[in-house]
């Protein structure tokens, strides 16, 4: 009933590739301190503590450890955005994985919680963070249990808390858990939620919580996978890390491929090098489209990402190429649609998600998302009119004015839309509701037209006295 190489790591497939964050998945007891210590566990922390904190920060900066949450911002640079001389500083770990298609942080938390904890400790040491909050999505019961047990073990063994390993480095790691809200994955909403409030994103600027975050203090918000990279980096060094992948996208990244492929799964791939074609058709990855069908379209980077078609299959997992091509790598989630897919209905499943998850703070998203969902739903049910399709674009324009990133923009003579694109909302939930609608309508207009009921307009004339 479960795919994957090992039952205890559902969906994960190992391959003949470097393993930076998944090397312990092979062990059934990968989540225990005993196994962690037997496999180089907490060695990275030990070596970090023997060096000045600033040197560790430089190492993370030089290795260009890219953020794995969605925006792909380098972690070392993010840490460097904190103002000098303002104390205390906090670390908030974003474990609220809920972007449609994304399934990797949960695996990392369930299968190797100590690796994440060690990553938190290294980050706290390097950046001078005095308390760490591990925010885990509320619905992930097993991940919460595994992290709680790992924290208890690590506290008892002296890896967390006062005077870690007998040094003058002290930090508490607090397990915090949410209660079901996608928008809380946005870093300022995550902080609001951690302060005990409704999880609504904060007005920007400031753009980064590094300047003003939890309790108004400098705060680093890092994704689970980003931090999980740090122990390996410290154990093996920057040269070994940057030897994997490309100069602009070093290391590996976790990618989940779901939908109409023969072998959906989670893979640790080589950053910047592995292409979408490798991933969808390669023997060590998804082994082709199901039933030998043709590929119709795929979402390259989570539900918020504009769609790609077979034309973009040869792009590698490299932000500097995927961005100009009209989409984004986002959170490492590829969703595949084969030739049998009902495109308007597929787009609706994503737009409904974002309409449902809008926090309601910005009108264009709260109203616009719902409008998109209702109109699209009407079209899918065969009750739409000609005006509905134009209206979808019009509502989308009110969320994201101007050109919207899209794979076929080049063919249409539209210049590449740089990220972040223009939007009338303070976070990306609104634009995300529009992305599937815009992609589906632009790429597969005929499928929508076929659903439209032709109606004759009745001219209404004002009644004069």
């Amino acid at each position: 009933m479960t795919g994957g190489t090992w039952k205890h790591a559902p969906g994960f497939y190992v391959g003949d590739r470097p393993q930076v964050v998944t090397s312990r998945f092979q062990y059934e007891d990968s989540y225990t301190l005993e196994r962690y210590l037997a496999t180089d566990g907490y060695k990275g922390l030990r070596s970090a503590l023997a060096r000045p904190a600033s040197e560790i920060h430089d190492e993370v900066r030089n290795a260009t450890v890219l953020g794995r949450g969605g925006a792909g911002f380098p972690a070392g640079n993010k840490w460097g955005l904190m103002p000098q001389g303002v104390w205390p500083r906090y670390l908030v770990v974003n474990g609220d994985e809920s972007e449609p298609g994304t399934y990797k942080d949960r695996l990392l938390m369930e299968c190797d919680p100590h690796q994440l904890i060690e990553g938190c400790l290294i980050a706290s040491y390097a950046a001078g963070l005095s308390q760490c909050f591990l925010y885990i999505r509320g619905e992930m019961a097993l991940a919460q249990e595994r992290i709680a047990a790992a924290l208890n073990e690590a506290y008892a063994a002296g890896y967390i808390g006062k005077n870690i390993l007998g040094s003058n480095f002290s930090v508490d790691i607090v397990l915090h858990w949410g209660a079901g809200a996608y928008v809380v994955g946005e870093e300022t909403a995550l902080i609001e939620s951690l302060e005990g409030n409704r999880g609504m994103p904060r007005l920007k600027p400031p753009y980064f919580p590094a300047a003003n975050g939890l309790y108004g203090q400098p705060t680093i918000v890092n994704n689970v996978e980003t931090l999980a990279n740090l122990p390996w980096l410290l154990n093996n060094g920057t040269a070994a890390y940057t030897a994997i992948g490309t100069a602009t996208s070093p290391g590996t990244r976790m990618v989940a491929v779901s939908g109409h492929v023969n072998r959906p799964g989670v893979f640790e791939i080589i950053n910047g090098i592995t292409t979408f074609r490798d991933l969808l058709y390669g023997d060590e990855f998804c082994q082709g489209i199901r039933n030998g069908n043709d590929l119709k379209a795929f979402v390259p980077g989570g539900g918020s990402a504009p769609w790609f078609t077979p034309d973009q299959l040869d792009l590698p997992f490299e932000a500097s190429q995927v961005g100009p091509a009209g989409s984004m790598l986002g959170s490492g989630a590829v969703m595949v649609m084969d030739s049998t897919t009902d495109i308007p209905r597929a787009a609706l499943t994503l737009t409904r998600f974002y309409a449902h998850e809008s926090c309601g703070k910005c009108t264009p998203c709260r109203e616009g998302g719902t409008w998109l969902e209702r109109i699209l739903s009407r079209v899918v049910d065969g009750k739409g009119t000609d005006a509905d399709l134009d209206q979808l674009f019009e509502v989308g324009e009110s969320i994201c004015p101007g050109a919207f990133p899209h794979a076929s923009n080049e063919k249409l003579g539209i210049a590449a839309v740089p990220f972040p694109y223009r939007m009338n909302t303070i976070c990306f939930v609104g634009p995300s509701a529009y992305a599937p609608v815009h992609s589906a309508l632009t790429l597969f207009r005929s499928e929508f037209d076929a659903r439209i009921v032709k109606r004759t307009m009745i001219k209404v004339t004002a009644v004069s006295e």
Partner: protein
Amino acid sequence: MARLTEENIRHSREIIGRYPKARSATIPLLHLAQEQDGYVTNEAMAHIAELVGASPAEVFGTASFYEMFKFEPIGKYLINICGTMSCALLGAEELMHHAEERLGIKMGSTTADGKFTLERVECQAACTEAPCLQVNYRYRYRVTPDHLDTLIADLSAETLVSEIPSHGIVASIRQHIPADRGVGAVAPELVTENPVWLDGKAAL
């Protein structure tokens, strides 16, 4: 039904003590209340407000934002079926229809015997194992209508109680910071100096 029990008050104080500001404990405490009663009662929210130094309206304001909190009794087993793209592409709609027929209720409602509540939910982060569902936040992967029938039969016969606790209990392992190991939370305004280890390398 009601305010938090003595044991939960003790546990609440332990949780509150981990944060630089008490209000941060609001969501964990709401989970504790839901664990105690199966849903979050008005009395519990008033009690949490006292504990974290907020008004009951503020606590309800926070609670009502999050989908996991229920404000009236629901079934012992909450079955959440995912309907987002990856699951939808692989038969989530059919699974939902089947669940509705099998239990004789619509999505969002509870069976008359109070045993099952069905909900259509959004992405549960198990997209490669689609279609997926959760029973009281425990996963079931690649679920077919037949699997669902077996699951419902097992839940009805209470043969899965060791794996799936009643609704309200999410994680059954809790963090505990030993008093002699914890650094302790300090209000941010009381911290004025940089952490000692930043002055050079960590003194071992």
